[in-house]
């Protein structure tokens, strides 16, 4: 798993200085996989089957002058996957919690997603609330103001996005990274703590614990 660790490091210099682990959570069909795909490939998938288990994507972005590699785990929203997908929460630096602005039920379930996220991540994990499908204004079922208030009450950052048009998708991933980077700079996020969800590249080749979930040493894979 740890492409970032070990053997390749001596040969190829990293073209990024940090790795942040993200998870994307929320009810089925809210557009989690489409958000990931829009972010990594800049494409929209109109007809997308339910995720089986988890999907994975990466992209390097620049935030506050730093190149950061995001490693993103997109979890399946269908109930039968939920118990096991919880093991992917551990060691996430960022959690994007998504609902669908056209389906109130997906908004009503947020408190249960939030409870899981809080219980299974660490106190420094940045939880970002995302109201997706904002292109479907005519079918809107949850107002911006209402969700904004929920976010404020729970100390979450919040944005409305459209994985279809691409609106604010980039911002959601980047702003979460900015928050994480800030907590590294102000010292509240301890990079040496297990499960911080962050790896600093130039010095630490061997710290892959936040990625493997378990600290098994792994081969490098250049991805």
């Amino acid at each position, binding site marked *: 798993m740890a492409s970032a660790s070990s053997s390749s490091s001596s040969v190829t210099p990293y073209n990024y200085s940090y790795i942040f682990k993200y998870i994307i959570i929320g009810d089925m069909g809210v557009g989690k996989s489409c958000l990931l795909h829009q972010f990594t490939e800049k494409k929209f998938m109109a007809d997308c089957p339910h995720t089986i288990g988890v999907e994975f994507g990466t992209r390097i972005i620049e935030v506050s002058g730093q190149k950061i590699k995001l490693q993103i785990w997109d979890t399946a929203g269908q109930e039968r996957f939920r118990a096991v997908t919880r093991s992917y929460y551990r060691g996430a630096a960022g959690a994007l919690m998504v609902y669908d602005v056209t389906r109130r039920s997906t908004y009503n379930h947020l408190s249960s997603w939030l409870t899981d996220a809080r219980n299974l991540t660490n106190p420094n994990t940045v939880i970002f609330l995302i109201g997706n499908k904002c292109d479907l204004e005519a079918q809107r079922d949850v107002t911006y103001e209402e969700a904004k208030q929920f976010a404020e009450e729970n100390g979450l950052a919040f944005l409305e996005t459209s994985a279809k048009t691409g609106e604010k998708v980039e911002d959601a991933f980047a702003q979460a990274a900015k928050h994480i980077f800030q907590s590294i700079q102000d010292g509240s996020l301890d990079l040496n703590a297990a499960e911080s969800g962050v790896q600093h590249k130039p010095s630490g080749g061997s710290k892959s614990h936040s990625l493997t979930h378990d600290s098994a040493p792994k081969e490098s*894979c250049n991805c």
Partner: protein
Amino acid sequence: MDYLLEETVPMADLKKFESKYNDEIQTQGRASSTAQFEYAWCLVRSKYSADIRKGILLLEDLFKNRDESAKQDYLYYLAIGNARIKEYQTSLKYIRALLQIQPGNRQATDLEGVVKKKMERDGLVGMAVVGGATLAFGALVGVGIALAKSK
């Protein structure tokens, strides 16, 4: 992408789903398909190949004997498990069976790409598919087609 084949399950989770599975067998004589799938999904992500093989057996049992509606889940993790123990041909066979049920499924085509890349790296490309595997593949595709028609 390779991460899907390389991340490992936390031991505590493996143990947790193992006990859930065993408890159900003890109390009900047989585990629910949910408990069996959860346990198998953890097993195929273990760092030990013996665990992965056990997970594959549990998934094969689910595929043959349980819910029609979750066949794609079983096929996908059968493909992951086999790829992790370097049974690449078998893995590809399951990916193709999954693509029969859900043509163009992106997770399946992505995984296919990863597996083929691994085979290339291991110098396995161009190796003939042996008779047995071809036969099994034929049988699975049959199931896939039957499923696709029954929709």
